């Protein structure tokens, strides 16, 4: 029973963690992309359509990632090259993604999908309790864990990550040091898009293997909030994502048991709990300040 509940928690948390990690990288470079929801839903629909067409959910995963990255490229072109307002462009990207995905997926609504099958890691998968939870999972779960570790290493250990944090902190000084601000930001934006696309693919290939219009259901916005409340630190994103997933699943079970709490309140619980916990974690103003990208959302136009 517990094992089954925990499995659903993991499945619910994974897309949040992946999308938030992608946005974390984007924001660390100083770009605020509010289009996570839109990129996610594009990833979901394209992954589903590709899977249905080819019969291979792995091709679907690749297609979802590509769709997210390509969609973010539009955002990058508008905000980085044409220096459009990042907030407005991000919101437009979400609205566009919701509409466009509905259009693309229209004829696929209600079709039974193909689920991405778990990969059993030999030996580790046989560990009692932990084995089925952590080592008999699908590819996207493994990727999400690899992303947490990889991004943490990249940001805080690698020289390229250092340059990216420098750009996020002060793009003018970074430019003066000879770092290519615009190119780095393009890559960061596209990485964020690819992660959102992957998170979307998880929704339509693992979480509920089918296409339903607007199936991201606000997860993109949760991911955005997670990044801020996790003060731009990957490990905290992981913790926040799992907390949110756990409370979501927990309150569903509570509703099923019919305890005497209004269901609206229970539905709100994951949001409240996640925000409260992450605020408590990030109450240290100094750490928050040091981790907040100071040039977030500010357009960069190199002097000539």
């Amino acid at each position: 029973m517990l094992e089954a509940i925990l499995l659903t928690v993991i499945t619910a948390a994974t897309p949040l963690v992946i999308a938030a990690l992608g946005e974390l990288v984007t924001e660390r470079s100083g770009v605020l992309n509010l289009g996570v929801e839109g990129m996610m839903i594009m990833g979901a629909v394209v992954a589903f359509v590709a899977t249905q067409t080819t019969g291979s959910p792995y091709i679907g995963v690749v297609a979802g990632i590509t769709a997210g990255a390509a969609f973010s490229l539009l955002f990058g072109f508008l905000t980085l090259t044409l220096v459009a307002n990042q907030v407005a462009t991000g919101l437009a990207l979400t609205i566009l993604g919701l509409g466009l995905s509905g259009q693309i997926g229209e004829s696929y609504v209600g079709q039974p999908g193909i689920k991405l099958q778990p990969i059993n890691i030999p030996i580790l998968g046989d560990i009692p309790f932990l084995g089925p939870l952590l080592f008999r999972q699908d590819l996207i779960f493994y990727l999400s864990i690899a992303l947490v570790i990889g991004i943490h290493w990249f940001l805080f250990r690698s020289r390229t990550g250092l340059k990216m944090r420098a750009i996020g902190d002060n793009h003018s000084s970074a430019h003066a040091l000879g770092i290519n601000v615009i190119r780095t930001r393009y890559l960061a934006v596209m990485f964020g898009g690819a992660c959102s696309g992957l998170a979307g693919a998880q929704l339509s290939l693992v979480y509920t293997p089918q296409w339903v219009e607007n199936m991201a259901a606000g997860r993109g916005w949760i991911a955005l909030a997670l990044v801020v409340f996790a003060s731009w630190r990957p490990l905290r994103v992981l913790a926040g994502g799992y907390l949110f997933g756990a409370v979501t699943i927990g309150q569903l079970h509570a509703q099923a048991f019919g305890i005497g709490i209004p269901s609206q309140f229970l539905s709100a619980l994951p949001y409240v709990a996640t925000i409260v916990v992450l605020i408590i974690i990030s109450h240290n103003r100094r750490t928050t300040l040091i981790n907040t990208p100071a040039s977030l959302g500010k357009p960069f136009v190199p002097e000539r």
Partner: protein
Amino acid sequence: MTVSEGPAGNPLLSVRQLTKYFGSFAACSGIDLDIAPGEIHALLGENGAGKSTLVKMLFGILEPSEGAILWNGKPAVIRSPSEARSLGIGMVFQHFSLFEALTVAENIALSLDPKISLAKISDEAAMLSQAYGLPLDPKAHVADLSVGERQRIEIVRALLQNPKLIILDEPTSVLTPQEADRLFETLFKLKAEGRSVLYISHRLEEVRRICDSATVLRHGKVTGTCDPKQETPASLARMMVGADVSDVSRGTGSQLGDVQIEVASLSVPARTPFAVPLRGIDMQVRAGEVLAIAGVAGNGQGELFDVLSGEHTVADNDAIRIRGNAVGKAGINARRLLGAGFVPEERHGHAAVSEMSLSDNLLLARSQPDRRALLSGGALSVIRHGAVRSAARRICEEMDVRKSGDDPAAGSLSGGNLQKFIVGRELDRQPVVLVVNQPTWGVDAGAASRIRQALVDLARAGSAVVVISQDLDEILEIATNIAVISEGRLSRSFAAGDLSLEKIGLMMGGIHDSTHSEAAHAH
């Protein structure tokens, strides 16, 4: 004055007839400079004398218009800061370009070869900071560091590249005295290793204390090369400010009226570690008087202006009086209501909102009674755009403000024209008391003379005018009385005719007359 040669005889860096034009304006003109190996060479000059332009040419940021730079006797063309670095020139800027969110080691790493590991950089930085007495924790975040510590990062960053010449641009302007002493010890260590230092400053005492030779600039030209230890502060000041005083009729000072603004034994502690405390300021300005306050930058001028204008109020309400009313605790608007006007030093973002039009800037600077003519609708305060615009137009005509368009944004005007507008804006209110900080700083000669004329005319019409200025020519041109501020102390005021340039120079160097014996310089 002798040209001092280093012990080795051959200079490390020579500059010959170096000239830089901005348009037709020569920021540097025919500069000659020799820096010997292992010497600390001072580059002295007032603000705007061309020091920064010269240094930027040496560090490859600006391209010289004419002249040559010789490195170890060979002609060198320095096209970029990285070329300067590879020659062996390191630079510590006045304003640092550090990343607040990153650690010390990370900041240093960003300007070095990416192949060197962060751990190695940390070790080397720690070692260097030990060796040169620049305590620095490589793991500390820049956001947590003081300005002095941030400067150490820049110095260590420069030292990591093993330079032969280190240029420091006004390094002590951001330091506390204790931090400055530490910096000097570091400079002596560098010198002992045979490295040369080009030390840019306008602080005479400092230069006399640590420099082996000095080149003095004024209006973009070399006015002297000397051994500062052989000079007096007065003789250095004379080279800095020049002796070419123009002959202009001053106010007579005989028909002065009542005291309009008065400061009595006002002391204000420093608000930040880098501010100057005001110590026992006494000042009286009468109707018809132009009191000019001379002084080398950073001796409390900004702090004095702030307490006079009410930007910072003081604890003792009676310490400042405008037309007999105690205003120490009153804000700017309350002081304006008494008939005072103020022109702060910074034009952009302080005296004017750069993005807004001239008429908006006019309206913003008006307090209740003056505003009445510009507003209608009683409590609704509807702006009468026509009235505001015509007032702005009147000011522009009065002060000969040249602008593009009818009512352009303040930021689109040249410095001189904007300054004329700002001064005109205050004059339009016919203030009884006007306090101006650096009225013609960075302003072209034509605009400067227009502004000076307006200030003199205002005093002649019976107002009390206080001008805080670093420009001695300006002071001698317009002042009826002169006082000198040094280290937060204000001398008594002297009739302009009674003061020689020599004496002003001495007072600027911190040597006051006997009535202020406690102010005698500590060094």
